[in-house]
């Protein structure tokens, strides 16, 4: 409301109230209202403004009502005086001898004229007789009590057999039961949520971070680590493999111990082992340059999992699950969800122990994560990291094979996730599959052998995805369901399609590689062999399986299907195709090494170095 409008309102009010005392009151209220109106909370002000108008209307109405009320009060006063006069006259009549002597006669006359009931007359007569009898007050009181008792008995008799109406349903009473942390199924809780004041642990934690061009965000990680509380001290050891973006300078400025290695020396195990050798802490915490702890007692809480004398289970190492960043992609969220369900840490803390030598048992029980992995330094120095890839999983497997227990927590998490291009997924899944067979001899590799069949199917499926017309309505899950249904109807090509320059699935060297292979093979237009058809069919069924997992995740989350979500789903589908291709290429590579593949062996030998570079 503008000031002009307020002034007009005020003047109008003054005129109506003619300078009465109420004007001052309302003016004061107007000032209050102006104070409210200066509040930026638009709707709140609107409510206050409406109230103000209500107040003014009510006040105006009150003036009219007051005049009417005054007139009515005068009429009421006169009426009450008249009633008092008549009551006095009636009292004189009722106290006269003649009036009382003639009462029985009047009663009989009313009965005869039908103006009174027999019951009423009898009651009146009884009452007169009762009053006339010379009884003491005590006896009269006893008689009254007996009569009332009799009436109660009579009423109870009359109401026999009637069902009492059910009371209205009431909501369940709410009993406050404060949340107790750790929650059921958990072994830890951050003090920020548990509401506890943790005692400082008198020990040093060394945080080991391999870096390479860590970027602007690295600043936040270093600050967060420096802000950790509840520990004797925190040491940060940065192992940098040739950054050129100021990572080293930033780390030194933040007081980190910096170890520099050549880029060619880098491997996940080597960099971490080197960092551990330069660390002086009682406990080691391995993390990555794009992770970020949750809360100020994150290190403390992980340390307590290892150094808790009251714990029923002593842990040799503990990792925590990831909580996705605000820029995390849909596919990564879905994959990590599936992975954590497999590990048993989706919404529980998993304490892993050796349960058997199958790859499923070892993977689900032995998984640690280098995004955040804490271990006693003395323990680590007996094991160290091994291998070029999945060094965290192999460390966990070795620990549980030795009878140790290790934790994978969901009660404590670390902020970390990815938004990767589709080319990354071809390579990542190739590495994962190749690694699994290296470490777990019982890992079953499908008998895929055909590059031609695989790429014929991959391009056919890619073409289908590009041409697919997404349904206009429905939920995100229904859209994916529709796509999966359409894939069921995609037939493998009868003839080898043109495989030159048809696409690289996000990894340009791969496009070049398959183009060269196709040129050399000169198979375009020839029928696919039985093995090629089988591998083409495998590509399709693997894609459908992976998309079905994605659909299940999306159906549970059920996001509102707007432009952003639609775009994310389409990208996730493309990346899923890249993953499927990466897996199939890994199978063919492994079968080639096993001597099961006879065609294109020389070309296939180049696959592994091409896809592993930079992973």
């Amino acid at each position, binding site marked *: 409301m503008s000031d002009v409008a307020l002034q007009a309102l005020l003047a109008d009010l003054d005129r109506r109230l003619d300078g009465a005392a109420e004007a001052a009151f309302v003016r004061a209220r107007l000032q209050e209202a102006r104070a409210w109106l200066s509040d930026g909370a638009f709707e709140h002000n609107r409510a206050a403004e409406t109230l103000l108008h209500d107040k003014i209307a009510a006040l105006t109405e009150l003036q009219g009502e007051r005049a009417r009320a005054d007139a009515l009060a005068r009429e009421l006063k006169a009426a009450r005086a008249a009633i008092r006069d008549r009551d006095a006259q009636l009292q004189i009549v009722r106290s006269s001898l003649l009036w009382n002597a003639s009462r029985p006669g009047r009663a009989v006359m009313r009965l005869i004229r039908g103006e009174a009931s027999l019951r009423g007359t009898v009651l009146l007569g009884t009452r007169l007789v009762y009053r006339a009898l010379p009884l003491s007050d005590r006896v009269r009181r006893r008689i009254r009590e007996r009569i009332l008792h009799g009436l109660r008995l009579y009423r109870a008799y009359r109401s026999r057999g009637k069902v009492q109406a059910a009371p209205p349903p009431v909501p369940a009473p*709410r009993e406050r*039961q404060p*949340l107790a942390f750790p929650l059921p199924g958990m072994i830890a809780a951050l003090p920020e949520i548990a509401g506890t004041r943790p005692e400082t642990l008198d020990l040093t934690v060394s945080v080991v971070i391999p870096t390479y061009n860590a970027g602007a965000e690295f600043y936040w990680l270093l600050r967060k680590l420096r802000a950790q509380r509840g520990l004797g001290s925190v040491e940060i050891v940065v192992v940098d493999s040739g950054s050129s973006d100021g990572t080293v300078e930033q780390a030194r400025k933040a007081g980190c111990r910096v170890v520099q290695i050549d880029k060619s020396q880098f491997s996940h195990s080597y960099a971490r082992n080197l960092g551990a050798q330069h660390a002086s802490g009682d406990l080691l915490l391995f993390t990555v340059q794009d992770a970020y702890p949750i*809360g100020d007692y994150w290190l403390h809480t992980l340390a307590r999992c290892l150094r808790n004398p009251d714990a029923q289970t002593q842990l040799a190492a503990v990792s925590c699950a990831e909580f996705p960043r605000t820029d995390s992609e849909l596919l990564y969220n879905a994959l990590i969800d599936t992975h954590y369900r497999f590990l048993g840490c989706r919404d529980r803390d998993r304490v892993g122990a050796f349960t058997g030598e199958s790859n499923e048992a070892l993977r689900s029980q032995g998984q640690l994560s280098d995004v955040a992995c804490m271990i006693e330094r003395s323990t680590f120095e007996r094991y160290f990291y091994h291998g070029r890839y999945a060094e965290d999983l192999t460390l966990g497997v070795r620990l549980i094979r030795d009878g140790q227990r290790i934790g994978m927590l969901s009660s404590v998490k670390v902020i970390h996730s990815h938004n990767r291009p589709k080319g990354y997924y071809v390579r990542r899944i190739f590495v994962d599959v190749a690694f699994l067979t290296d470490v777990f001899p019982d890992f079953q590799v499908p008998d895929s052998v055909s590059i031609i069949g695989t790429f014929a199917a991959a391009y056919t499926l890619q073409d289908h995805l590009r041409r697919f017309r997404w349904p206009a309505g429905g939920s995100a899950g229904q859209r994916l369901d529709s796509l999966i249904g359409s894939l069921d109807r995609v037939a493998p090509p009868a003839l080898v399609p043109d495989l030159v320059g048809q696409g690289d699935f996000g990894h340009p060297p791969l496009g070049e590689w398959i183009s060269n292979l196709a040129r050399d093979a000169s198979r375009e237009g020839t029928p696919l062999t039985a093995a090629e058809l089988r591998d083409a069919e495998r590509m399709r069924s693997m894609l459908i399986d992976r998309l079905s997992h994605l659909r299940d995740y999306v159906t549970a989350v059920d996001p509102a299907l707007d432009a*952003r979500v639609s775009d994310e789903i389409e990208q996730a589908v493309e990346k899923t195709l890249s993953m499927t291709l990466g897996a199939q290429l890994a199978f063919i590579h492994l079968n080639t090494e096993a001597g099961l593949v006879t065609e294109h062996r020389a070309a296939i030998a180049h696959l592994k170095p091409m896809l592993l570079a930079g992973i």
Partner: protein
Amino acid sequence: MRILFVVHQFMPEFAAGTERVTLNLAQSAQRDGHHADVLTCSMRDEVPWEEAGEWRCARVDGVQVFGLRGAGVTPLQQLGLETDVGRRHVVERFLKGREPYDVVHFTHPMRMLEVVEAVRDRGLPYVLTLTDFYLMCWQNNLVRLSGELCSGPAGGAACVRHCSTLRLNDRMLLERWERMGQILADADAIVACSPYVAQSFQAEYPDLPIRIIPHGINLLDFAPARPSAGDAIVFGYVGTLSAMKGVDVLVEAFAKTDLPQARLKLVGPTFDDDLARTLEQFASADERISIHPAIPAAEVPAMLATFDILCLPSRVPETFSLAVHEAFAANLPCIVSDLGHPAQVIREHGCGMVAPSGDVTAWAEALHAAARGEHVLAEWQAQIPLPFRVEEEGFLYSQIYTGLVRSPETARRQHHVEALTHA
């Protein structure tokens, strides 16, 4: 897990602080693999909603939003002085018609008290986030009608004594206090956005268990660090330009300073014509002062990057102030008034100055003190606390939701409701 967020207003109609916090939480829950909807009150007919019978629907950045029509909501309902049975039935039909929610999270219950009642009667666990003083004060900010600060409702007696009006009589105010007290008492988890809010509520309700989870900032939007100011120090303000926020005090204080190289940038909307005229007069008389229109939330980091110090001269106690915490993310020290949470933070960390609310002379002195030299800013910058991240806030709430879903009390209540339904 299926989570329903309930808030008094939301996008696409409004996009202020509480709305951004609610959206952040809903999206965090989605990324964490949960289903999240928002239920709000739709006050504007001109905004493009999809009409869906008794309520409206909208999609906001991947989150499904349902709007209860607010056209019939009376001022008394808005201020929490009465509820509407008809609206309550609409809420019940909404809850009944959808796949059951596991947890309901009220990020602001204004205009949504019927939802609280319906949720309570269905035995659903609910979380209350205290973002302001609405549940204790019909004015929201614990400031009396006289303009004095209020120490709390004192069982409603203070409301009767200091904040009754012609329409808001004693009985209504006392009933409001009781109704809100019951909402607090029945909540399964209560979270305050700052220690200041928690302390204020616990002064009135000493037994109330309140956790503190600060609102998160999306750190990824901010440049990590910036150098201290040169000769021309830039004081900035971002938010609604209103007398309640003390913008008039700031501009008057700045006009009094003898800092020829300094600048004052005021950024935000104004709904107060008088104040707008006053600010324009100051700006036209002093070229060091500039006024900028409101900017979208996504542009705030870039705007903050042009400041050297953020000023928050509020006349009312701020319960949190996203602007101050975003300033911390931009490595900006702050000068704030001596009311509320920002003053507590600045005093605790020494990352700026605290000046008396409404005191022009004191504010002018504070601005002078900040401009004494680069070393002052550098010292303050070194003390700036690390803001909480959106993801941290989301994770801590996820632990509360998980705890409530696993609580035996929730199972007992659900069993009771089912038994009643079958009976």
